[in-house]
């Protein structure tokens, strides 16, 4: 679950200077630097999955964006805009035929950024599972009350089933969670990863927070789909 700083530097090939520069620039959240006792007094460990994925993203993008731009792109803050059903049609990862189901589930037609992330995650999941439209609506209805309270994307969406009946839970990235072992976890989706990809891919389509900068980036990141991590 955690990776030590030494192992992180070895695995990723980055230096101390880069690590701490990226921390200063806000590319790596301060809360990922977790102090724990060790034989040298104290050592820093990181949430393994998140930090490796973040460093990979930084390494891939740092030559195309300034560190300041990257910090905005990778920011966990929820983009402050509402998405209409017309906006949803622009997002390829949300299947057009599912939009009415989301409207029915959320019981509205203007959506928060975090709700859009949930739609993407569920759309992707539906493509690779036998979850029915009715079950999708039930999950949305079950989650919708919690989503407006989430002010960052630092959450994980967990989907699990019990005898083909699907359920979901959302918890903060750093939180420990213990699920009834009778339930089968079928997907684990880091909303921050989805958010980064969404912001990158559609930065020209939507007024995300960083869109007041020059619009030099077009669709160079469009080739990559929104993969979600298998559980």
């Amino acid at each position, binding site marked *: 679950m955690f990776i030590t*700083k*030494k192992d992180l*530097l*070895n695995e990723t090939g980055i*230096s*101390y*200077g880069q690590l*701490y*520069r990226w*921390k*200063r620039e806000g590319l790596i959240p301060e809360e990922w630097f977790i102090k724990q006792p060790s034989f*040298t*007094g*104290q050592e820093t460990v990181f949430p393994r999955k998140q930090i490796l994925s973040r460093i990979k993203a930084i390494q891939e993008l740092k030559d195309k964006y300034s560190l300041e731009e990257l910090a905005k792109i990778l920011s966990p803050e929820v983009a402050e805009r509402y998405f209409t059903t017309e906006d949803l049609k622009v997002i390829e990862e949300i299947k057009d035929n599912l939009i009415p189901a989301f409207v029915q589930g959320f019981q509205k037609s203007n959506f928060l950024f975090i709700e859009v992330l949930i739609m993407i995650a569920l759309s992707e999941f539906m493509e690779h599972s036998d979850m029915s439209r009715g079950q999708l609506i039930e999950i949305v209805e079950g989650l919708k009350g919690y989503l407006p309270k989430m002010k960052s994307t630092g959450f994980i969406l967990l989907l699990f089933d019990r005898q083909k009946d699907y359920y979901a839970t959302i918890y903060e990235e750093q939180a420990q969670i213990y699920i009834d072992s009778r339930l089968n976890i079928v997907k684990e989706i880091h909303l921050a990863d989805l958010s980064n990809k969404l912001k990158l891919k559609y930065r020209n389509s939507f007024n995300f927070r960083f869109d007041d900068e020059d619009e030099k980036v077009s669709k160079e990141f469009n080739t990559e789909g929104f993969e979600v991590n298998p559980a």
Partner: protein
Amino acid sequence: MRRNILALGERSIQGDYGMVTAAGELAIEESTIKRLSAAGSVTISHSQIKKGKVAGSLLAEASDFQELKAFGSTEIHGICKGNLCSFAGAIAAELLECKVLHNSSGSKRSNLSNSNEWSGAFHAVTFESASALTLNFEYRFQNIISTEALHSDHEIECENFYSLSQLSAVAVNAEYIFLLNGESIRVDQVTGSHVKIKNSFRPDKKFKQIPKYGSYKGRNGKKSIALIHTIEADHIEIESTRAQLVCGEQVNIGDLCIIDRVEYRESIQISEKAVVNEVVKV
């Protein structure tokens, strides 16, 4: 044509001025002033001041200063901008953006117990602290140069950090860190690309290129030991330092260092006058 004014008592001015000299209560609104010298209570709003010197209390709102020196108490409302701003005394700012921001001591030597009180938000290319200060306000500084006691309960972050005097902080994280082994250095964690802890300071090319107000000559530190728990950086060069853990790519442990454990990735040099308990190549 620009006018010159000598204002005594209570005055309000508005317009384009050459030299304004005032004592008492002066209110400046929507004005452009080439040179302002004032003692007393001064309010400046929506104005541009080329060169200003104020002693007493200053309230500035949404104004630009080419050069401002304020002695006494200062309040900044809205966003004020400056090329060089120097303050001796307390300052509270909603947001002050400067190229060079200077915390001045006036004439007498200060310490943390009688330090200037700063609050609010400050952005600057270079922040020079020539008077004892606690960094407990919101800031964004590219360079920090401290020649008097500096304290922070949080991590100090900037690009280039020079401490030429007393320093106590939870952590310092900067691209380049220079600590002069002076009166007392106590920091839990020092991290960055380059870390130097030395017994003497000579301004090098890098330092000379930093925009600043003060003039800095070489200086020698006092014979003391810097107390640091962990140092992590690509290039580390330290003298007279007591540390539990030193981790770096290229590490140079100089005279009078006492280090529990050194982890290096590329190269290591250890002075014969240093004590290092454990050295590990990682």
